[in-house]
């Protein structure tokens, strides 16, 4: 696959390793960049694709705050970063909100995504359309066939599977009928079926007609020619940050289809190629990705207090801004968010205790960069670090400054 040309400092592979870990995981952890070859790191990263069976915990108050903190902690220092990354992808794409569904429902949905994240897409969809949080969030709970609510049917096709242009408004109405009849018990989060509210007649949906169960509906959706390219395109953009070429998309879509809509092979294909080889940093980090690196870098223990910071950064899990969730793209590099990040980077109490075991400015700067997992920086970033290193020594907060600057740098928010 790749030559493991590691010199005594491991320098040759450090840049692609850092890039891989920012794209396919949540950034390099202490020691990840030291003397390891790319092949070894890649195998390690792919090993983290498997579901380790972890369950987001529910506490007796069924409060989501500790649950979200649990997930953030796994991003900072968990055993299976690629799996958690994939769960983040699904939560960012097939989303629901704790503003509408209960905490217990949102935690159950998260665990559903954990079980299916790297598995089969058809199975994932089947689980999601009967998930309590999703039924509540997209107004499908208690929807009746005679005047059904269209929200779930529409977003299922527009955002989860096919994209605009591949279905008609008539399909949305038909899909809404097929999905009618589910009920949700608010206290137990149990999903039930009200036979009186279900559709009992034939419909026409995506060019097929007759009697439709929810299963048949999802089969038809998944068999639609737009489905495989749509889903693989989203996966690609999430991991790489740019759009795939037509050829590459066709390749990945074929891989997805031929495997029977298995997610892991597509992710592995992307991770072992573009995530490493595409060296033009084109993927702004999602806010929570930057924040996980920040927590790890300053050595902060993750707790419910972090949720306020995540909200300010624009990505508090379980509270999506709208039904499109959070998509990778240049909007996360906007000016206003840079101000938030720069403010956060300099405000850490844990960061205030940082002191590098180094004397010269050059060594102190190298230490700061190593702490954040930054391998390559531009001239302007280096000049900024040198300015600060010259004005403040290690004692008196100078190393905290360097670390904050490294975290606030343009390089630290792109991969």
């Amino acid at each position, binding site marked *: 696959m790749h030559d493991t040309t590691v010199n005594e400092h491991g320098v040759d592979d450090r840049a692609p390793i850092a890039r891989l870990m920012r794209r396919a995981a949540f950034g390099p952890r202490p020691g990840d960049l030291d003397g390891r070859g790319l092949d070894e790191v890649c195998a390690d990263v792919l090993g983290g694709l498997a579901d380790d069976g972890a369950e987001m915990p529910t506490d007796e108050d069924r409060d989501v705050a500790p649950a979200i903190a649990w997930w953030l902690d796994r991003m900072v220092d968990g055993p299976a970063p690629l799996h958690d990354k994939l769960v983040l992808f699904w939560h960012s794409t097939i989303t629901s909100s704790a503003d509408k569904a209960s905490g217990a429902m949102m935690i159950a949905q998260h665990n559903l995504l954990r079980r299916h994240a790297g598995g089969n897409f058809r199975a994932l969809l089947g689980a999601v359309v009967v998930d309590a949080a999703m039924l509540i969030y997209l107004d499908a709970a208690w929807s009746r066939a005679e005047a059904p609510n*269209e929200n779930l049917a529409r977003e299922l096709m527009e955002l989860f599977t096919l994209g605009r242009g591949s279905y008609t408004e008539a399909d949305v109405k038909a899909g809404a009928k097929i999905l009618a009849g589910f009920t949700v018990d608010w206290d137990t989060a149990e999903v039930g079926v009200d036979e009186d509210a279900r559709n009992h007649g034939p419909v026409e949906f995506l060019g097929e007609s007759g009697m439709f169960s929810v299963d048949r509906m999802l089969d038809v959706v998944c068999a639609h020619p737009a489905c495989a390219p749509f889903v693989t395109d989203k996966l690609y953009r999430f991991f790489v940050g*740019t759009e795939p070429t037509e050829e590459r998309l066709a390749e990945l879509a074929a891989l997805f289809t031929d495997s029977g809509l298995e997610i892991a092979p597509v992710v592995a294909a992307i991770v072992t190629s573009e995530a490493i080889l595409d060296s033009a940093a084109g993927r702004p980090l999602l806010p929570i990705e930057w924040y996980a690196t920040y927590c790890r870098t300053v050595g902060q223990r993750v707790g419910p207090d972090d949720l306020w910071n995540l909200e*300010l950064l624009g990505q508090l899990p379980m509270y999506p801004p709208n039904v499109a969730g959070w998509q990778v793209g240049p909007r996360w590099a906007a000016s206003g968010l840079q101000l938030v990040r720069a403010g956060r980077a300099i405000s850490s109490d844990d960061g205030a205790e940082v002191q590098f075991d180094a004397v010269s400015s050059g060594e102190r700067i190298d230490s700061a960069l190593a702490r954040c997992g930054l391998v390559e920086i531009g001239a302007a970033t280096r000049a900024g670090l040198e300015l600060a290193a010259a004005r403040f020594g290690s004692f008196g907060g100078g190393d905290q400054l360097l670390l904050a600057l490294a975290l606030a740098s*343009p390089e630290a*928010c792109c991969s």
Partner: protein
Amino acid sequence: MPQHIDRRDFLRLAGFSGTAALAGWGGTATTAAAACSTRPGLAPLAVSTLPATTTRVLVVIEMGGGNDGFSMVPPVDGAALAALRPTTMPDPAALVDVGGGVLVHPGLSALARRGVIAVEGVGSVTPDGSHFEMMRRWWMGDAASAEHATTGMLGRLCDLLDQGAPVTGLSIGGASSPALANVSAGTLGLPDPGMLWWLMDPDDDWSQTYCDALATMAGPSAGDSSMTALVRRNLASALESGAIVRDVAAQGDGSGRIAGQPDGALAEKLALAVQVLSADIGVRVIHVPFGGDFDTHEDHAARHAWLMEEFGAAASWFADELDRRGLGDDVLVMTTSEFGRRPAENGDAGLDHGTASTMMITGPVASGRVGEPVDFARLDDEGNPAVPVSLDRYIGGVIEEWFGVPATEVVDAEPLALGIGASVAVG
């Protein structure tokens, strides 16, 4: 009493303007960078030809989710709609008369002594039920063509009005709005100003060093990828603009809150808007995402009433505050929403996605109805009416009548006659 930042600071910061502050919307990195570096963009109008009206301000309140304009300002000919909505319309006896033949939702009673223009029949003439597509059209301002794909409608307006101010267009709330994506004028999407403590305390060497180092880091750097270069440029404009706004918010008692300010997210944002306008730093367009959920698929009547009450209280307080500071004649407020809601109610006492809707303009205007009433007798297969007035014509009308500049630079549409110019002394 109006507050002013130090003129020396203003001039110093104004010298930094011209950085492409593309605030980051959609597209690929290549598109974004190309928009910054190669697109000539709209040339700002020569200062000598600018009418005085270009010093006016437009506040755009974005009611995300699809506001039901038929509930906000019920149609004059209401019988057909009432038949389709047995449970979701406001009580006709409770509507409030704001003059000019305009009766509004009772939640907006606080606007009764203000001018309200109801703009009827507005929407995308090729409607689509998707929030994202419809919001994209509003932001981009060009339903048919992809020509303006990397700039937003409000962004183009800012480029046209640009007089070199560090911030011409401001979005208040979270990440920047794609509507402000532009080429040349300074724009900013704002976080909570309290977070900017580190930005300007000249007495603290340590935080001053942080700022100086960040500013150095934000200078041009050879070898950057186009995305990294974009991020670097955004950092530069962030530092310049954040300093101004931090100063503005720190005035008065330092809390950013104004006496008498109503509760709620909208009022908070309008309070910052008031302070920014008072500081007179050149902001001309303020985009305010409402922060409420207008997507009332269920329980419409109660949820919408709550939203109307918040809107009425905040908008009327905003107008009062502007009057107190002598700015009331210079600020126009317009609402927008990605679509309206369907005439017939659904089984959940709610309203699904619609097409045409009624928008609202308030400020130094005389009340009246403009646009074209919707024909409820002729509904399409989805149960929606045809859209008589394109969204582009609505914004075009505001640009021409309020700012006195050619709307066709910003949108490709014949401006709708709104009656703003007729009611306000121009000059």
